[in-house]
Each structure stands twice: as structure tokens, then as C-alpha cells.
């Protein structure tokens, strides 16, 4: 709805306000009965509010024009041509939604702003919800969104399907992936009331896949998200502690989601347009489809990480590859590779992984676990690392696992 109104009135900020107002109006108006077509009702109320607002703005603009014509000479006129009231046609709605998502992830906005706008405007979360999800003061988030809306309006950022669509979709997928990752990492933390960013990311990725069925990477990302989501219930135990992939109760994994992810991934790969999300989905698929931890094909996973490193060079990918090598060829082979990596000295999972591999090789690991514990803010991870520090006898060692794009311990 926001996408439709923004498109029609070319004013994202005013459209957003109008939708919020319409929702508030609905709260009281619908007490006496919900209308037959609630979406159309809301659309009409929001649209009328916008038209009112434009008429008021036009009136003051005319006044200004009379006073200072040079200031308003090239002011664009708002388009007020009549349209049918009910334009809830699914095909046009989807197209507008994609335009709105692409606008939220416009490269002339910085990354944090893209994430905030995507959740706030395309995802429809409130400022308070987005702020809570990122542990930011609500005022900070609101200010970021206000600034972005102002830039969109005043800098002439268009709500159109861009000529360089592939590039722009790449930026959009990156934002959805970041939102998903944030949700995944916060899972073990104490914030049970946080909005579920994982579900939100999946919902938005589905919209992109629906709109761009030929984008192999969009569908690859959806498969990746579904694989991880399928395992999420088993990642944390009853006491809120992280459970390592190796020790997770596989009967608790969501088979329907794994099945859908398998189908999505197969479909993505028929386009013969490989990319990093598809490769990560294949890796996640190896884990999700292994009946037991011992069934995991770690050699294949190590090879996939090496492909991924070529597509998108990143030390964290190399870290994951070292883990896979350790699982396939033993901890010493993994440690050899770890010791060649640079740029990860401040990354807690580098030290957590090193600790695990040292422990498995029967070598002292406490210093690595302690360094990792100092570097993370996540309470569940901190407790897990403290536990590992005290129990680093080689017999009780557990294995590092994987998350999207980063090595992790759960």
C-alpha cells in the first residue's frame, strides 16, 4: 500500500504518514465492524488524506508563487489525475513493492540506513520495533529514517525500476542477508521480545523472488534462509544455551522448510547463474540434509568454501573452510590453515574456532577461548565459551559449526 501511494503521489514521507494515520483511524472505525475489503478501505482513507494534504500544500505554494515567483518556477506539479479507487491488483502491487524495496536499498544511502528503511518502510515495522531489533535508541533510528526520507525527497531519488537492475538487486539481497544474519546471531541472546528479523527477512526475500523469478541469487538466498530457519528451534536448548550443530536434535528440524529449501535451491540452479548465495545455500543444504552429524560431507563443504572464497574473497569464508578441512582431515590440518589467515585477530569466532581445534588436537586451548570470550557481546556465546574453557579436555571437545557467512560455534 505504501509502495502504491508513494508511486502515485511521488512523496514517500507523506505516504508513510498517511498510511500510519489510516491505520489509527481504522482502530476506532473498525470497532463497529470490519469492512468487506479492509485493504481497499485503508488505501482509500490514506489516499484521501494525501490528496487533502496536497491541496493544502498547493494552496500555500500558490501564495508563495504570488509573493516570490522565482522560487516556485520549476516546482513539479503533483499528479492528481483520477484513478480507480480499488487498485489492489496483485500484479501491479508486487511491482510497486519491488520498486519500494529497491528505493530503500538505493546505493546513495549508507548501509545502516538501507537496513533501517527496508524494515521500517518495506517491512512495515514500527520505528520502536526496528530500534529494538538493533538495540538502538528509538530516537537514533527515527532520526536515521527521517534523514533518509528527506534525502530521497530532496535529492531526486526515483521510485523506478533502475536500468542497472542486476546491480541494484545485488544491493537489495545484501541488505536482506544482513537483516537475516542479525536475526540469526541475536537468537541466543537475552532479548526474547525482539522482533523476529529472520522471519521478516524471509518474508521480504519471498517478495523479491516472486517479483524476480529469474534471479537465481534471490532464490538461492531464500533457500539459504530457509535451511537456517529450519534448524533454528534446535539451536538453543530449554535453558537458552546454544547447542552446537553437531549436538543438535535433528528430529527438531523443520522438514517442510528443508524440503522447500531443497526445491528452491534446485530451481535457482536451473538458471545456470552461480553466485555466493547459491553456494552458501548448497553448504547449508549439506548440513540440513545430513541424517546425523557424522553423515556430513565435510570434504565437499571444504571445496564449496574454496569456490565461495573465489567468488567473494572474505577471511571469514576462509575461516569456515579451515573448519571444514579440520572436520574432513583432522584438527591439525585445520590449524595449519587457520595459522595462515590474517585480518581476523579481533574476530571472536576466529579464536573460538582455534580453541576448539587446539582442544581436539589435545593442546592447551584456554587462552583462545578466553580471547574469544572477551571479544563477544552475546551472553549465550560468552557462557558457552566460559564452559568450554573449563572443560577443555580432549575427550569432551565439540565441533565448531557454521552460520550464514560466518563461522560460529552454534
Amino acid at each position, binding site marked *: 500500500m505504501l509502495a502504491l501511494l508513494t508511486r502515485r503521489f511521488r512523496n514517500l514521507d507523506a505516504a508513510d504518514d498517511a498510511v500510519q494515520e489510516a491505520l489509527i483511524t481504522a482502530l476506532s472505525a473498525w470497532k463497529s465492524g470490519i469492512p468487506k475489503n479492509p485493504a481497499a478501505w485503508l488505501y482509500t482513507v490514506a489516499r484521501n488524506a494525501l490528496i487533502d494534504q496536497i491541496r493544502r500544500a498547493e494552496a500555500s505554494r500558490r*501564495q508563495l508563487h504570488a509573493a516570490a515567483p522565482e522560487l516556485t518556477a520549476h516546482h513539479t506539479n503533483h499528479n492528481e489525475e483520477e484513478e480507480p479507487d480499488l487498485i489492489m491488483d496483485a500484479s501491479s502491487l508486487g511491482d510497486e513493492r519491488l520498486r519500494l524495496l529497491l528505493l530503500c536499498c538505493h546505493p546513495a544511502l549508507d548501509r545502516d540506513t538501507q537496513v533501517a528503511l527496508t524494515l521500517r518502510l518495506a517491512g512495515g515495522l514500527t520505528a520502536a520495533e526496528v530500534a529494538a531489533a538493533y538495540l538502538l535508541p528509538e530516537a537514533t533510528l527515527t532520526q536515521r529514517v527521517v534523514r533518509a526520507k*528527506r534525502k530521497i525527497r530532496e*535529492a531526486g*531519488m526515483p521510485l523506478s525500476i533502475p536500468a542497472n537492475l542486476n546491480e541494484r538487486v545485488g544491493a537489495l539481497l545484501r541488505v536482506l542477508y544482513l537483516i537475516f544474519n542479525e536475526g540469526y546471531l541475536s537468537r541466543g541472546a537475552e532479548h526474547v521480545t525482539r522482533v523476529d528479523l529472520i522471519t521478516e527477512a524471509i518474508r521480504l526475500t519471498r517478495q523479491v523472488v516472486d517479483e524476480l523469478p529469474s534471479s537465481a541469487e534471490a532464490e538461492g538466498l531464500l533457500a539459504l534462509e530457509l535451511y537456517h530457519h529450519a534448524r533454528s528451534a534446535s539451536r538453543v536448548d530449554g535453558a537458552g544455551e546454544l547447542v552446537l550443530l553437531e549436538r543438535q536434535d535433528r528430529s527438531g528440524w523443520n522438514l517442510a522448510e528443508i524440503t522447500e529449501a531443497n526445491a528452491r535451491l534446485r530451481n535457482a540452479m536451473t538458471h545456470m547463474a552461480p553466485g555466493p548465495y547459491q553456494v552458501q545455500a548448497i553448504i547449508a543444504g549439506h548440513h540440513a540434509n545430513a541424517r546425523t552429524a557424522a553423515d556430513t560431507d565435510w570434504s565437499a563443504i571444504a571445496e564449496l568454501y574454496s569456490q565461495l572464497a573465489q567468488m567473494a574473497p572474505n577471511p571469514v569464508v576462509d575461516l569456515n573452510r579451515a573448519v571444514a578441512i579440520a572436520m574432513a582431515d583432522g584438527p591439525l590440518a585445520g590449524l595449519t590453515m587457520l595459522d595462515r589467515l590474517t585480518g581476523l585477530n579481533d574476530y571472536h569466532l576466529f579464536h573460538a574456532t582455534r580453541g576448539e581445534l587446539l582442544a581436539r588436537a589435545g593442546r592447551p586451548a584456554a587462552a583462545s577461548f578466553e580471547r574469544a570470550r572477551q571479544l563477544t557481546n552475546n551472553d549465550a556465546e560468552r557462557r558457552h565459551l566460559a564452559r568450554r574453557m573449563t572443560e577443555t579436555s580432549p575427550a569432551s571437545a565439540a565441533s565448531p559449526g557454521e552460520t550464514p557467512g560466518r563461522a560460529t560455534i552454534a
Partner: protein
Amino acid sequence: MEFMILIHSDESTPPPAPGEPGFDEFMGEWMTYNQSLIEGGHWVSAASLAPTITATTLRRSPGQAPEIVDGPFAETKEQFGGYYLISAESLDEAIELAGKLPMGSGSLEIRPVAFRPDAE
């Protein structure tokens, strides 16, 4: 010769907006100045830019796609060396056109013109 005068001022104390007290006096002084340039045969073009919140910077390096940065140009090693005033449909088109400038390394700040007295 033609010269460019670059105006730097503090955005945190904006001039009066249209309709606010003092606006007419404020505008009047600029118009008088412009008129004096026109009458003296000095006038070429002038424009005031939208505030820096609207700025987008394109970082150019040889052989690479331009990097788009949200915000104004903030590097002090490079010096202001020229300008284009272009007409474009949208920021996207302006970025595309700026990306084609036949330059090697450097940065291009893109901002909408808020007001230009000699615009038709």
C-alpha cells in the same frame, strides 16, 4: 576571464524560509547583488544548492566502477577543480552521467540545485 566564487556557510543557521519573517529582506539583498552583476556585465550563472543532507559522492578510480557514497565530499587531499551544471531526470541519471566523466582518480559530489535565478 570567468571566475567561480564558491560559497561556504554554516548550514546549522539557515536563512529565513519563504513566508518567515525577514525572508523578503534576505531575498531582496541577493536579488540586488545579482542585479548589480547583470548590469555590470559580470553575470554568467549562479545557483544555491540543496543542503548537504542531499549529497551523494562518487569516488572514481581508473579501471573501476565508481563507488557511491552517501554524504558530502569529505577528503581534504583533493581540491575543488571544476564543475558541471547538468539537467537530469533523477539522482540515478545524475550518478550515471557523473560516472562517465573522462577523469581518472577523484571524487564528485552530486547535489540538487535548490534555486537558480536564471533558470527558465
